[in-house]
């Protein structure tokens, strides 16, 4: 008996067998057995930066909201202004609690006759219950998370790979837009989105398409030496772009204003959850803000490490790594507002030693190819 058959709650994605065959190291993540790496996180990371890689993101959650009051419901629950979306457009947005704390960050897709919300895997149940408990008459909410497999192809050569599997002119899909395309006998939704900072696509596939599309992408990717990419490199890729990770950089104790996400809070769209609290916080300035730090030397800042000024602990690292692209240690963390100016110095405490760090302008990696 293998170790995983003991825990019957762990799910496999439709691509599980391909990961195992490719020699991936599989770990439980958000209720799924996911590939954390195939050949090595650094190599996979650089493949996406310089060329192209494919990710299985089937663990992500997909909700559909339809009905005459769908937009009204989304406007009330999310911070960004979904009324600005035309069919085929996508926006990054936030679900907040009434006190301004973050329930989740998400993507809102406007489709022909409904909206699709793409939420973090670890928050699917929580988000669904949260939305359901506020649902209004005239809006219908369906959790379709278990129905979809999600494949992402990311990197400067992503379009070259994906254009091999379809006749659709991908050039017509701008960044943060989606389209329904055909590949072989299958028709599915594809968006020019990602969590890497590079150009790339995400494909929402129903179960019966998954085998065909995996194989088609693998064949298409051969010509371009496409690599398979695990969650390890996904984390370092998003970190280099200062893209927040729920549970690390944002959670119910942080607000979008503190996290530097005021750009997705639309105060002039009318009332919405936590609007007044967030507006007050924006006007009065938050007490702390999520900032980017670069360190010198051989240090590896990790989640939870203390940020120190003088002899005082002034914050914590929320995400950190040794940046594969920059070849230096980088971190994100919250600092008191007065310490957040660019160039400000602070120390990171790494196993009883202090390493000097300086506040830098995001993103860490500035050569991303996303459009």
């Amino acid at each position, binding site marked *: 008996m293998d170790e995983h058959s003991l825990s019957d709650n762990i799910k496999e994605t439709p691509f599980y067998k391909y990961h195992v065959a490719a020699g991936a*190291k599989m770990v439980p993540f958000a209720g799924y057995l996911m590939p954390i790496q195939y050949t090595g*996180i650094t*190599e996979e990371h650089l493949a996406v930066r310089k060329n192209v890689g494919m990710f299985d993101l089937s663990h992500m959650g997909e909700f559909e909201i339809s009905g005459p009051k769908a937009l009204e419901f989304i406007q009330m629950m999310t911070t960004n202004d979904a009324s600005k979306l035309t069919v085929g457009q996508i926006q990054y947005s936030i679900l907040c609690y009434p006190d301004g704390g973050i329930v989740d960050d998400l993507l809102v897709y406007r489709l022909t006759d409904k909206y699709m919300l793409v939420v973090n895997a670890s928050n699917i149940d929580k988000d669904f219950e949260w939305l359901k408990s506020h649902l209004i008459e005239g809006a219908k909410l369906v959790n379709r998370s278990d129905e979809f497999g999600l494949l992402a192809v990311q990197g400067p050569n992503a379009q070259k790979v994906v254009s091999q599997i379809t006749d659709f002119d991908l050039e017509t899909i701008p960044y943060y837009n989606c389209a329904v395309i055909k590949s072989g006998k299958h028709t599915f939704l594809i968006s020019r989105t990602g969590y890497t900072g590079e150009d790339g696509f995400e494909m929402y596939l129903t179960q019966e398409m998954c085998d065909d599309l995996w194989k088609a992408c693998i064949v298409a990717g051969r010509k371009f030496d496409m690599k398979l990419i695990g969650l*390890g490199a996904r984390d370092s890729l998003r970190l280099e772009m200062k893209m927040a990770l729920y549970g690390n950089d944002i959670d119910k104790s942080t607000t979008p204003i503190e996290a530097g996400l005021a750009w997705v809070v639309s105060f002039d769209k009318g009332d919405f959850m936590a609007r007044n609290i967030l507006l007050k916080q924006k006007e009065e300035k938050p007490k702390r803000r999520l900032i980017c730090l670069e360190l010198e030397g051989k240090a*590896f800042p990790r989640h939870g490490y203390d940020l120190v000024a003088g002899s005082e602990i002034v914050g914590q690292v929320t995400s950190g790594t*040794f940046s594969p692209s920059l070849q230096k240690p980088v971190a994100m963390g919250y600092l008191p507002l007065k310490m957040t100016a660019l160039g400000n110095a602070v120390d990171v405490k790494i196993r009883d030693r202090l390493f000097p760090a300086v506040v830098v302008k995001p993103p860490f990696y500035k050569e991303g190819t996303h459009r």
Partner: protein
Amino acid sequence: MIIPDKLKYTSEHEWVALDEDIATFGITEYAQGELGDVVFVELPAVGIKVKALQPFGTIEAVKAVSELFAPMSGEVAEINKELETDPMLVNRDPYGQGWMVKVRINDPGEWDRLLPASEYSKLVG
């Protein structure tokens, strides 16, 4: 999983090779796989005394940080300087170019208390 017979092992996944009174330490193939890509290795200076089962250095890798435990006691005679510029030698060749320190041992009896390959392979099997 490669576990060379001529080496001995600790339950913390270090290996040791013995040549007269010089012991070479490194980490096993299993350990490098668990840690992921090694970003840097912090090693003691030549001349420092290390003690069996006590930490002698730190290994920072993308997935985790880990202390290095000395399999045997003695004085550091040489450190692998190559790891400074290419720490992923530990991933690519854990039993060869990825070696970490050479120690002049002072208690050969400690060798007998280490795990032989057959025992270590049960631990990671």
